[in-house]
């Protein structure tokens, strides 16, 4: 089992890009985040859909009382103009500095361990600082199913 078998190649995020551009790439590739690279192309951070949504769409006071919330709270939902505003924000504001990355030679068990350590569902695959793609938990689950099919 090799990580290269399940890696999903994606574009990278960089300074100047908007939330919309990052979300579009993530949605097209079906991945939960992208690496953030500096002007030399080195991965220096990551952009996570979860973190970006948390910072822009859900106030902390709602998270704390989420278990009490009813369904008739439409007036607290995001308006179209607010959504437009969020998607046009520069992605730089939402870059996380903790980057989990592995080399193509890393075993799957190391990938899972690193994901647990960083409390994330994905890791970046880099060789000689060159970004190859993203490995997700879902990809690993698919790989396990492929290796041991139902007889």
């Amino acid at each position, binding site marked *: 089992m090799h990580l290269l078998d399940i890696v999903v190649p994606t574009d990278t995020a960089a300074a100047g890009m908007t939330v919309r551009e990052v979300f579009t790439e993530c949605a097209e590739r079906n991945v939960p985040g992208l690496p953030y690279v500096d002007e030399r192309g080195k991965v220096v951070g990551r952009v996570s859909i979860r973190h970006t949504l948390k910072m822009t769409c859900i106030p902390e006071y709602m998270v704390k*009382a989420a278990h009490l919330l009813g369904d008739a709270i439409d007036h607290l939902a995001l308006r179209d103009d607010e959504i437009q505003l969020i998607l046009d924000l520069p992605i730089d504001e939402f870059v996380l500095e903790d980057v989990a990355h592995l080399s193509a030679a890393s075993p799957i068990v190391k990938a899972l361990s690193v994901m647990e350590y960083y409390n994330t569902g994905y890791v970046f695959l880099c060789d000689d600082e060159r970004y190859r793609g993203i490995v997700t938990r879902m990809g690993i689950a698919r790989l396990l199913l492929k290796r041991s099919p139902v007889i």
Partner: protein
Amino acid sequence: MPPEIAPTELTRDMLVAGGVLVAAYALIFTEVLHRATAALLGAVLMVVAGMVFGFYDQESAIQAIDGNTMVLLLAMMMMIAILRPTGAFEYAAVRITKLARGDARVLLVYLTLAVSLISMILDNVTTIIIFAPLTVLITRLLKLNPMPFLIAEAMMSNIGGAATLVGDPPNIMIGSAANIDFTRFLVHMGPPIAVVWIGTVALLLFLFRDHLRVRLSGEVELDERKAIKDPAALAMALGSLALIVVLFFVHHKLHLYPAFVALVGLVLAMLLLRSQPDRLFAEVHWSVLIFFAALFVIVGGVEGSGLLDLVGWQLADMARDPEKLLLACLALMWVAAMLSAVVDNIPFTVAMIPIIVGLEKAGLDIAPLWWALAIGVGLGGNGTHIGATANIIAVSESEKTGDPRGRITPVAWLRVGIPTMVVSLVLASAVYALFFDYFLG
């Protein structure tokens, strides 16, 4: 107690100890260092200075730490760590909101009453940490400005905490130093604080009248039943807390320290709920406890140098005349309040305690001074947004609302805080002066 011989002149030891105290307090108040670090540095310097000049040593420093205060705070912090996950606070907040039946003014009164009552037994900071985000959500759901509610809750939690021995750390320190039991504290502080409470709520309703003059439509879309995840655990936690409260009322008759009483309830709760001690210890505010312990050590050194006795004897002449005693008490109350509005009231309280104890050596009735100090430090915190930790939490929560109207700026707080502090002090002073004999020892 017969009067002792008065110290008359400033000695080298007093100057050294006073210098360390001033330097440490300057570091604490200017926030150059974290207050716990600053206090620890001051404590170490005081012990070193005391050992070099011979007025203080390590044993005296350890004895200066008030074990009753420290253990009581620790036990109540752990008790809160047990109660918090039960969902009782959330349940109460949502239930209260529904009971207000769409009247914003009634909602403000109910919420402030709830935080006041909880703050009489539990730490008011924790009460606000739990209530403030819920209040923002409730007000957003009801399309109200959260600002009046956040300010009112913080202020009324400070006032509620002032009523009891365990409601506020300064009260714990005063009660422990003056050997005042829970019931005596409540009986003396309860009436003035009740008057202050009513007056302050009325004032807040007036000051926020434009925000509250709305009839709310519809139910608040929150289900309080989902707050309680484990009813059995809640019952056991509340039962243990009830035992603590009952024992607080009789601890002096049983010759038990309030700290021991709190420990009894805590141990019972830990046993009944099979609580993980590591989780409870992780939720203890250790930096707060270390800060208090270090302050005790610093002030213990100043006491050891004789400086506080000297200060006490100077003040004693002023307060010896019964008529002047009332004036001295009111002066102490207002000075304590003014200082508490701008700086942390704990260092002030810790420094004042040995001075008041020293006045007793000068043959004075110091009982009314304890109540004046407790009222002053308890009410002064409402003056500014930095006057109490609960205020800072309310301000911080208002900044997360995403609504500029709901943001509590320092000026917005002052507009409400100064009149509230002055009115509450006037009311407390009036009750105190009218029934001054009641506050005598």
